[in-house]
């Protein structure tokens, strides 16, 4: 019995150490964004002294923060909406058996083997020919359908009994209304997974905006953050306030939807 308690103690110790290792950097940046400590002065203190919000105020006035925030939100909204429609439509079509279906599935799966980073040069050139440089559409287009989420929808649709489909057909429902009125309402977890995953990807996207955005007004938050770093170096409290302003929405969304987020990653990775 004593051995068991000892083992439990060891387990907890390891986990607590890891938790500290993971939370300390985040706590540290939050603290500095409120106090400006540890930029110049030594030794650091663990508890924030005289917190104030002036660094956040400065970020708001020094850069067009609202514009950047709007850009990020707007692109994310396009991406999330497009993904919901395109992925669910593709998954719905894959319900049927038709000649060439295997080929299409193989096509989708092989797309996972082409990371976006290996396509950036022609993708940039194509976007330039389409006249979409410095535009919201150009930012959102490459992300507007994602393989993992097609398969998330497919799994959810496969679980819906075929009798429901047959009944709807007998009732004379049109195909698109079967998808939008029956299938999607029954696949709510898949919708949530889709929304969360694509939101996170779109919000964090950096290399693509870096390549196609040259207009200062069109920058998204991560791009704005990296530009901010190049102007103010790493000893301004404002930089860390900006960091907090960029990651706060993501952390909020993650904690509110943690379970869906995780199940999304799992189903995407294991089954796709």
């Amino acid at each position, binding site marked *: 019995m004593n051995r068991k308690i000892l083992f439990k103690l060891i387990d907890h110790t390891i986990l607590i150490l890891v938790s500290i290792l993971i939370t300390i950097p985040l706590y540290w940046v939050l603290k500095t964004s409120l106090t400006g400590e540890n930029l110049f002065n030594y030794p650091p203190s663990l508890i924030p002294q005289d917190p*104030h*919000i*002036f660094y956040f*105020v*400065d970020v*708001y*006035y*020094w850069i067009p923060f609202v514009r950047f925030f709007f850009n990020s939100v707007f692109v994310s909204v396009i991406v999330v909406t497009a993904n919901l429609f395109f992925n669910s439509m593709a998954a719905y079509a894959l319900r049927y058996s038709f000649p060439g279906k295997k080929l299409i599935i193989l096509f989708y799966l092989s797309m996972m083997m082409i990371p976006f980073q290996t396509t950036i040069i022609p993708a940039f050139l194509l976007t330039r020919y389409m006249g979409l440089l410095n535009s919201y559409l150009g930012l959102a287009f490459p992300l507007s359908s994602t393989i993992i989420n097609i398969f998330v929808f497919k799994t959810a649709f496969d679980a819906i009994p075929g009798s429901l489909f047959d009944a709807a057909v007998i009732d004379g429902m049109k195909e698109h209304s079967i998808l939008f009125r029956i299938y999607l309402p029954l696949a709510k977890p898949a919708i949530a997974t889709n929304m969360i995953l694509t939101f996170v990807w779109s919000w964090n996207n950096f290399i693509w905006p870096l390549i196609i955005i040259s207009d200062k007004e069109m920058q998204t938050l991560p791009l704005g953050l990296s530009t901010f770093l190049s102007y103010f170096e790493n000893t301004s409290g404002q930089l860390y306030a900006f960091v907090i302003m960029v990651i706060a929405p993501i952390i*909020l969304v993650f*904690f*509110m*939807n943690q379970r869906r987020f995780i199940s999304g990653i799992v189903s995407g990775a294991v089954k796709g």
Partner: protein
Amino acid sequence: MKPFRYIWDLIRSNPANSIVLLLLITSLTGWIVYVELNTDGIITGKVVDETGKPVPEARVLVREKTLNLIKPPIVTETNQDGVFVFKDMRIIEFLINAQKEGYEAGEDIRYHLYFKGQHFSLPKPLVLKKVRTP
């Protein structure tokens, strides 16, 4: 698609979510209300001498600090009660300073506001010392 329904589901699935949402909404509304109530762009304060008596007709200078420069001063004068008022100020960080003949030059005091156009009365009066004549 149905945002309210989604938020309701979030609250139901985890009570901690409702606390976070509530905090978020109240702090945001609170902030907006606070800004709306205090956005007249007035900066006001008092100038006194060492004994605490108000100094009339003192020049008060406000210089806005921006990212990389300090702008030329905006000037006003105190009235009979030693009170000064700046109107239509759209600044967040500034240096303030009072001067009058027969007094030593006052020190720059730095203030940082929460938003541009915030109503602000200086928490401490500006103090001017009389020049000592031997």
